[in-house]
């Protein structure tokens, strides 16, 4: 078989025809125009379409030029080389998968509620900081990280990030990576569960629909196991219909005199409900709850993302929040404290640069990839898509009345209990919202109140409902769409709570298994229950503490989540940088070294401020000292804490949070120092250090590289088909 049968090497560079040049010049002009509008608009409202245009044009240019440079020049992807999917092909976890299917898989695995929450919170500084970071961060850092990790893991038969850190950097880096993953898992689950609690407390409609997802998933699980095994599409379609019925039914429940009381839960009731659910769900067999839930989430995810994009383009809402608010510079923001640098970059992780993705990119995906060049579409492309989801979430937050936005996102303690007190608190910030407006908005979405619905989900849902109802159904459908969007986020989160608890449990079982052998057996029931309980206890504690935090749990915990996620990003980028140096790609090391430097600067500055800042609004220990001093003075209330007990709570929480922030910073430093040691060694050895790359095996398979096959690829496919070798032209999907 000739070399060109399986891979066009070197990649055919598309010729610069006049038409092509014209198209790219047009893309660049549209992008530059859109960027100037969003960056220079002051005082007047601009259309959300400009954000969409700026994003899409930037993604197109980033994908076409930068990702091409990284994959062909830096990584030197080689389509004549067999991927692990082709070499090992065992019909199960390793098998060559159509690139479009894999792109869908990978996207569904990396994107959940994260990109919907961060941008909404960051909107307190205006739309511009978030927009710039989401777009530029994804193009130069996030998508590069995902693609490079995917590439190196693929060259190592799909080794995990932890394994690569241990083998390529050393045991210290490996242990740090393990702690980082466990810590971020616990904080992540707590923060996400808190988003659900805040969205569903005192909301019979939302609580009813979400609780209904449990019987729906159980039904799907039994249906798929006993009635129609393997009919995933059919089962999911039934599930989606039932889900929509549950959302519609919620409206009826909310009106019902008795049922609305039955499904009316306080924050603490929901907290304990979620903790029990998390434990039970994670010890049940996956076919009952997790697997059907996953099918449902994937369906909803893809469906809603497409629906939202289309609706924004049709509705073309205007952004009502300014480009910058004062909080970007004075650090006094009510949603989260601290100034633009570093806190915007901490708050928005998913959607710009998320270390967590590295776990997915070094998990299932590298074992399924068909051709090396497809890392670009799967790794880089999926991340750009997630970035786009984040932009849409930002738009949803920025089109609602700024006064309403702040009334929804400030901690309850700062807003008081009535619409009048909330209106007064928002006015003090320099925004205006009348008590009547707050009442009307709550009535529109058929909720008791919109005050202090923190956590991002209700704000996103309100924005999304405004967009959806412009296109479908008008005002009358506002309440349905609001609860649809809340449900959409809560559904992901419950799935993540279940799956995340399991992932944490396996890591814990593995770790404890090193000292106590029976624990290694992952189906040993006592071990399974114990480790599940430990993980649930971990996030359950932070959830409970956050929900009862007088200063606002999201306000306190979200920065920790961001720091933890970026810490994992630092591990991933350090591994990538090490591998680039070791594999003789030192010349191009800046493609991951610059994002690493940025990520470390952000993480360390944020942790430093969280630990050492004198400003009690930012520094955990300064806050702690303030409350300790007040208690010693015999005061019985301070700020948002209205009793001695609440003041004690603040002291405990700030101590735990402060210690964690310090620990995260320490881990970053440890990993970095350890990685630097290896870099120096590798540079001295002049690229002669051993790496664990699998040896070259010639590929016998052919498939196109990108989403749409090029003219040459189509020609090539036709030739292959005529001679009867290789895959069919479009890839390996259905030979019906």
């Amino acid at each position, binding site marked *: 078989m000739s070399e060109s049968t399986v891979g066009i090497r070197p990649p055919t560079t598309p010729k610069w025809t006049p038409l092509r040049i014209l198209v790219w010049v047009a893309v660049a002009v549209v992008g530059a125009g859109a960027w100037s509008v969003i960056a220079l608009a002051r005082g007047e409202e601009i259309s959300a379409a400009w954000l969409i245009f700026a994003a899409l044009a930037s993604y197109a240019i980033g994908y076409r030029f930068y990702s091409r440079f990284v994959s062909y020049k830096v990584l030197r992807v080689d389509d004549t080389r067999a991927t692990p999917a082709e070499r090992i*092909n065992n*019909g*199960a976890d390793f*098998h060559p*998968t*159509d690139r*479009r*299917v894999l792109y*869908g898989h990978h996207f*569904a*695995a*990396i*994107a*959940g*509620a*994260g990109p919907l929450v961060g941008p909404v919170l960051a909107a307190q500084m205006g739309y511009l900081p978030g927009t710039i970071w989401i777009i530029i961060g994804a193009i130069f850092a996030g998508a590069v990280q995902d693609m490079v990790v995917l590439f190196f893991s693929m060259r190592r038969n799909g080794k995990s990030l932890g394994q690569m850190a241990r083998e390529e950097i050393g045991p210290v880096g490996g242990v740090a990576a393990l702690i980082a993953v466990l810590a971020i898992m616990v904080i992540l689950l707590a923060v996400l569960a808190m988003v659900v609690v805040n969205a569903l407390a005192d909301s019979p409609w939302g609580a009813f629909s979400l609780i209904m997802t449990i019987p729906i998933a159980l039904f799907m699980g039994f249906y*798929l*196991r006993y009635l129609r*095994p*393997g*009919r*995933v*599409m059919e089962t999911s379609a039934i599930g989606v219909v039932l889900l929509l019925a549950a959302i519609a039914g919620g409206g009826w429940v909310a009106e019902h005199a008795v049922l609305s009381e039955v499904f009316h839960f306080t924050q603490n009731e929901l907290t304990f409900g979620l903790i029990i659910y998390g434990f039970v769900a994670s010890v049940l*067999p*996956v*076919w009952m709850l997790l*697997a059907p839930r996953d*099918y449902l989430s*994937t*369906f909803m995810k*893809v469906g809603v993302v497409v629906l939202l994009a289309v609706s924004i383009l049709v509705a073309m809402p205007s952004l009502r929040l300014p480009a910058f608010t004062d909080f970007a510079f004075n650090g006094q923001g009510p949603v989260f404290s601290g100034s633009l640098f570093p806190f915007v970059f901490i708050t928005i992780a*998913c959607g710009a640069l*998320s270390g*967590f*993705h590295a*776990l*997915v990119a070094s*998990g*299932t995906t590298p074992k399924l990839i068909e051709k090396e060049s497809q890392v670009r579409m799967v790794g880089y492309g999926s991340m750009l898509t997630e970035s786009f989801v984040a932009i849409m979430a930002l738009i949803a937050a920025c089109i609602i009345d700024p006064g309403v936005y702040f009334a929804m996102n400030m901690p309850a303690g700062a807003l008081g209990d009535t619409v009048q007190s909330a209106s007064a608190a928002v006015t003090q910030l320099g925004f205006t919202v009348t008590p009547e407006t707050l009442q009307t908005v709550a009535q529109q979405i058929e909720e008791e109140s919109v005050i202090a619905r923190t956590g991002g989900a209700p704000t996103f849902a309100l924005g999304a409902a405004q967009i959806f109802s412009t296109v479908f159904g008008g005002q009358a459908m506002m309440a349905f769409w609001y609860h649809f969007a809340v449900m959409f986020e809560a559904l992901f989160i419950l*799935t*993540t709570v279940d*799956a995340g608890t399991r*992932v944490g449990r*396996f890591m814990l079982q593995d770790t404890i298994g090193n000292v106590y052998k029976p624990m290694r057996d992952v*189906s040993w029931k006592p071990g399974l229950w114990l480790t599940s309980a430990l993980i649930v206890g971990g996030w359950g504690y932070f959830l409970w503490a956050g929900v009862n935090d007088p200063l606002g749990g999201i306000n306190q915990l979200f920065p920790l989540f961001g720091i933890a*996620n970026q810490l994992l990003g630092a591990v991933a980028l350090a591994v990538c940088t090490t591998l680039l140096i070791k594999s003789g790609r030192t010349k191009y090391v800046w493609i991951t070294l610059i994002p690493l430097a940025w990520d470390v600067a952000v993480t360390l500055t944020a942790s430093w401020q969280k630990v050492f800042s004198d400003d009690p609004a930012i520094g955990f220990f300064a806050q702690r000292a303030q409350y300790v001093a007040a208690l010693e003075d015999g005061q019985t209330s301070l700020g948002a804490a209205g009793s001695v007990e609440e003041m004690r709570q603040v002291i405990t929480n700030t101590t735990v949070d402060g210690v964690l922030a310090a620990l995260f910073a320490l881990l970053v430093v440890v990993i970095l120092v350890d990685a630097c040691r290896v870099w120096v060694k590798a540079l001295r050895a002049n690229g002669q250090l051993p790496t664990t790359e699998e040896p070259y095996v010639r590929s016998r398979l052919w498939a*196109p590289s990108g989403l*749409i*096959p090029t003219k040459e690829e*189509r020609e090539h*496919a*036709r030739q*292959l*088909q005529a001679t009867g070798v290789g895959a*069919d*032209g*479009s890839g390996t*999907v*259905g030979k*019906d």
Partner: protein
Amino acid sequence: MPTGSGRAVPEGSGPARLRAAVLRGLREAWQIARGIAGERAYEIYLEHHRRVHPGVPPMGEREFWRRHIDKGDTDPGTRCC
């Protein structure tokens, strides 16, 4: 009209060819959706089984799916936020 699948383009008038192309596109999209949902797992297994163990009867569909889903009990995939 060139299409991604590289299959022979049917002879005939413009509208007939267009319809064939649209149908082919839809079929392909359906298969991609099934792939993303994970519905093709049994087909993939059968293909693999035929290639590697020709002559040996493969697992039945019901049993395959049972094992396929139960694998998740001991190996949870990582998902992000």
